[in-house]
């Protein structure tokens, strides 16, 4: 669906954020994009949606270069940025003005998503709190039914009940044709949603794997104190003692711990890479 080929990009000369970066993104997945601060998560999202132009390489959405910003590509793409702006008009007016640009926009679905978020339809956007604006914006984004939905820190600013509502709304909005990329540091908010994980650091992709593959390749466990078990790739302190990550010895089941996976990937990148190459 989306192919990134030999991408190089930097805001300043001689200081590239991405260098010869390549990645394929499949359709029908909820993808978590993880990385440390400043590694270029938001930049990658902007590049994917054509808001930034790479200096080298290209990004193609269904074969079309996203840099061209063709209407058929834009109709299939929606980005919920971390900081966004909504005009000081009613939601209804906003929908009247913007929905016509999205051929598959569904008013019915918008109503359903607003219900999930417990938001009324007749609101004035300028009078909403940040969290409420975000819920309205996410509802609109999902209702556009674009095949490519990108979200940068979507759960920031959402209260605890809203995070659960967010997960429900994303699940409602998913189908086999739609790809959702969520870039976030709030991994606990989305770990149950994800089908695929991409971790980036130092201009490279450190991990690009489905959660199913991660589950069969790695084992996430809890131990007491410092475990000396061979095969442990990474440990970190936890409430129960230590969280451990090791290679899966064969059909072992464990719950995906995104935080542990992230830290381990950054700390033991070569080992992790070897495991996923097998």
């Amino acid at each position, binding site marked *: 669906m989306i192919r990134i080929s030999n991408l190089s990009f930097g805001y300043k000369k001689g200081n590239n954020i991405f260098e010869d970066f390549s990645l394929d993104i499949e359709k029908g997945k909820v993808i978590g994009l993880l990385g440390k601060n400043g590694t270029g998560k938001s930049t990658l999202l902007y590049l994917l949606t054509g808001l930034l132009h790479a200096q080298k390489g290209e990004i193609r959405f269904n074969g079309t270069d996203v840099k061209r910003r063709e209407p058929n590509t*834009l109709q299939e793409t929606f980005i919920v940025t971390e900081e966004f702006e909504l*005009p000081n*008009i009613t939601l209804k007016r906003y929908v009247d003005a913007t929905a016509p*640009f999205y051929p598959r926009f569904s008013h019915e679905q918008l109503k359903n998503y607003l219900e999930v978020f417990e938001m009324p339809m007749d609101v004035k956007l300028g009078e909403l709190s940040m969290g409420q604006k975000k819920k309205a914006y996410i509802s609109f984004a999902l209702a556009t039914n674009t095949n490519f939905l990108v979200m940068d820190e979507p759960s920031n600013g959402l209260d605890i009940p809203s995070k659960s509502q967010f997960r429900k709304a994303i699940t409602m909005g998913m189908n086999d044709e739609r790809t959702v990329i969520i870039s976030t540091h709030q991994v606990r908010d989305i770990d149950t949603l994800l089908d695929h994980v991409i971790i980036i650091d130092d201009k490279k992709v450190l991990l690009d794997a489905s959660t199913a593959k991660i589950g069969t390749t790695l084992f996430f466990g809890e131990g007491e104190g410092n475990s000396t078990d061979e095969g442990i790739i990474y440990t970190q302190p936890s409430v129960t003692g230590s969280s451990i990550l090791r290679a899966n010895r064969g059909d072992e089941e464990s719950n995906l711990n995104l935080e542990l996976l992230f830290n381990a990937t950054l700390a033991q990148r070569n080992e992790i890479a070897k495991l996923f190459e097998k």
Partner: protein
Amino acid sequence: MKPENKFSFTRVVQLIKHYAIVEKRGLLLYTLISIAALQIPYLAAIIAYNTAHTDSSVRYDIELLIMILGAVITFILLTYAASQLMNTKNKESRSNFLMLPAKSSEKFIARMLICTVGAMITVAAGHLLGICSYNLLLTLLNAEEYYHNLGTQFLDTVFSLDSLATSIIFMLYCLYIWGAAYFHKNCYARSSTVALLTWPIPYLTIVLGFTSKLLCEYDNNLQFVRMIMYILPFVTIWAAWRNFNRTQIIGKERYMWIITGLIVIYIIIFGVAGYIFNKDIKDVKTIKLEEERIERITGAEFPAFDYHKTTFYHSGGMLGDFTCSAIYKFDKVPTNEFYNTLDSLCNVEGSNWSKSNNQSDSTASAEEYSFHIIWGNNYPAPEGESPEDDRLITIEIPKGQKEFKITYGAW
């Protein structure tokens, strides 16, 4: 090409509608501030004349100062007004705009229509209101109307197809608005800089007050200059389009007010330069016709007289038309011999002299001698004058008084 990727005027209309709904606050502010800004020239015109008309030796200086000040204030206000139109001022708004599913060309044309047609409507509304407030202020302040029909003059200038300077001002303003929407970084700085580098001659022409010999005359040798200036807008549109296509989400607007300030200084410098170097303006405005020239044209021998003061000046736009009235003073009240000469000339057919009795005005002389002649534009020129010049002279001499009036102009 996929059908949805073809250019669509429906989408252009949708974009304009989207803009009008989403940016209505910005549109309203732009309209109100622009209209307010366009009242400044009319106010400046009233202040300029009524401040300085008593002493013509400094009158031109004060008028120019007030008009430049008025132009600068108007420019700053219009600049600020244009900034309210920007729906791409920050990263968030640029994201919204760039991600709208429409072709770049559709967004560009929608923007162009808002900037040009929208600006034309606002300018027209501003000028119409200005005419009304100008006439109202004249009445309220009991001020003298120096610039006859100033309002219609402005309208003629604004909407005249041949008004080169006005069309260029308008294109510059539109470029300014475009640039702020479409440049990647430093939007205002870049668009203003492009305007400065591309349009130095128009800036020069504008601040010389439309009377510059450089571009005002219908001189075939300068037609190529006019042609280049008409081509320049298309070059600018091409440059704006090129930059729009390269617009990205990241880009700060810096130096807006610094660049605006530099343009203002630029205008002032050229205004001052125009004052210093444009002899024609000074000559016209101080209109001192020589005694020998008056006698040659009128065919009458005048007693010694001298220029006293200019009482009226009007410039009619880019073609160099002007009319200037001045009071002259005889050294002494003329003798009967002079008036007898004028009586004789009044009786000569084709002398252009006439005599009238002014019975209604008890304060004026009962009799007044008038001389009126025009030449050029196929009218024969009097002796010693060139038929290439289109000129008019009217002389009004009240009998028994030292002061008389000469009106001299180009038509």
